[in-house]
């Protein structure tokens, strides 16, 4: 029983991280139908930046969020202008296909850049609190995992409030539903898309920081993108609220798999789930859109 509780709580801790990983991808897809599968690579790059900041400047990873988030906002801004803005005029399906192609290119470029800069070796930021745990009735909860959960909850609530309580946030949602009608209301759709896209990039910074606290290497880009896509399928494409639940669900399912079959098969269960959902509920578990 204790063994199960331990595995299950680890599952939920990673699940919250999965939610964070998928958040930026979900936002960008929801607003402009761009499927930026390079998201995992962005998170990986953010993890390396965190590693550098800690290694050379002794900046605490959690503090580094305040730097890495705006930095990725700017990177997103530039990449949108250079690579993605020209796709705006295409129809929905063309946008998905073309953004997928561009992002696939980025998903190859970024990890190779990372190998050049940092080699393919495993790295991890080792802080004073790495490996420290809370003991709750014998279940060990690492500080880092709990920090991740707290961040995931804070960020998702903050994003939700931004999207539902501010004029700009509502404009983002309006654009996500109907570009033309939003234009008629006086909303600058290009500007809204630019900002939403950059926000999606900024949202890669936070999971990047948490990733840096565990062992990571350039190749995790693909794993992270994988997780993000599974969470998106679970949550329904473009749903912000669903993302945390989708992440936790994936974490729980992986935990169940680990408990029943064993740790080496952890990754398999997410993918099986992915295939099953695509077969039986292609609109996602919570999604309405086909």
């Amino acid at each position, binding site marked *: 029983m204790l063994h199960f509780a331990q595995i299950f709580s680890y599952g939920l801790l990673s699940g919250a991280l999965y939610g964070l990983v998928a958040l930026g991808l979900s936002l960008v897809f929801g607003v402009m139908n761009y499927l930026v599968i390079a998201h995992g690579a962005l998170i990986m790059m953010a993890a390396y930046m965190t590693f550098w900041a800690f290694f050379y400047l002794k900046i605490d990873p959690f503090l580094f969020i305040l730097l890495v988030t705006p930095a990725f906002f700017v990177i997103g801004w530039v990449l949108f202008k250079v690579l993605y803005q020209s796709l705006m005029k295409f129809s929905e399906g063309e946008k998905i296909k073309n953004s997928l192609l561009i992002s696939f290119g980025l998903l190859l470029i970024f990890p190779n850049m990372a190998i050049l800069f940092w080699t393919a070796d495993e790295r991890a930021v080792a802080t004073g609190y790495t490996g420290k745990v809370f003991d709750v009735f014998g279940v060990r909860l690492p500080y880092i995992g709990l920090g991740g959960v707290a961040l995931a909850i804070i960020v998702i609530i903050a994003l939700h409030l931004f999207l539902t309580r501010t*004029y700009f946030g*509502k*404009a983002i*949602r*309006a654009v996500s*539903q*109907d570009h*033309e*009608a*939003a*234009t*008629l*209301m*006086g*909303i*600058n*759709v290009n500007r809204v898309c630019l900002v939403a896209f950059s926000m999606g990039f900024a949202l890669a910074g936070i999971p990047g920081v948490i990733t840096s606290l565990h062992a990571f290497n350039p190749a995790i880009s693909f794993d992270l993108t994988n997780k993000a896509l599974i969470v998106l399928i679970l949550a329904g494409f473009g749903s912000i609220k669903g993302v945390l639940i989708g992440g936790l669900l994936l974490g729980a399912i992986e935990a169940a798999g680990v408990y029943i079959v064993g740790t080496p098969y952890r990754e398999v269960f997410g993918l099986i789930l992915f295939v099953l959902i695509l077969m039986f509920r292609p609109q996602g578990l919570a999604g309405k859109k086909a």
Partner: protein
Amino acid sequence: MLEVENVDVYYGDVQALWNVSFRVEGEEIVALVGSNGAGKTTVLKTITGLLRPRNGNVRIYGVRSDTIPAHKIVDLGVSLVPEGRRLFRDMMVLENLEIGGYIGRARNVKNENLRWIFEIFPVLENRLRQLAGTLSGGEQQMLAIARGLMSEPKMLLVDELSLGLAPLIVKNIYKILKEINTSRKMTILVVEQNVRLALEIGDRAYILENGRISGEGRGIDLLNSEQVKKAYLAMG
């Protein structure tokens, strides 16, 4: 005041409007009628900047609107209630209204405008927290008009409001538009497939046929003209 002068509009290589000219003066209700595919919606999309004329020009209260970005046109004082309503279905009624009043000058007077909207459409006040997509057809059309009014326009463009609605509801909504026209001195351009209805409500009207203006006059005169009776009212 709206002036459309010698406008040619193309979809790619296909010409949709040919040398279209008409004007809407202050405080009047003008109807633009024509059958399906005549180019009525194209005219409205050109006025609101969603389409650009290849030749000719559009002036809204003296300002050339065909050269400024589409999202700035609502600032000139016109607001379009689009065909098929085009509500933000996954947002609440209140949020739809707020987005309607997105531009700066409208935000400052949001509460006054909301109060006015609830006087015109009391049913919306009870539905504020409901998702727009869950409203009935008539309520959705009311919300679309209300959303258009939230930007404090001097001129309201209404596209095909009768589409998919019961005749009684249509009549009711047109009555409300007439009231807004009188009480608020709102200039209104209605675009309608339902020719009789539009000619009854319009002070003046233009007839659009195959992308060309083929007739104009007082609504009542057109209603009695042979051309209209034959082509649109199945009479004579």
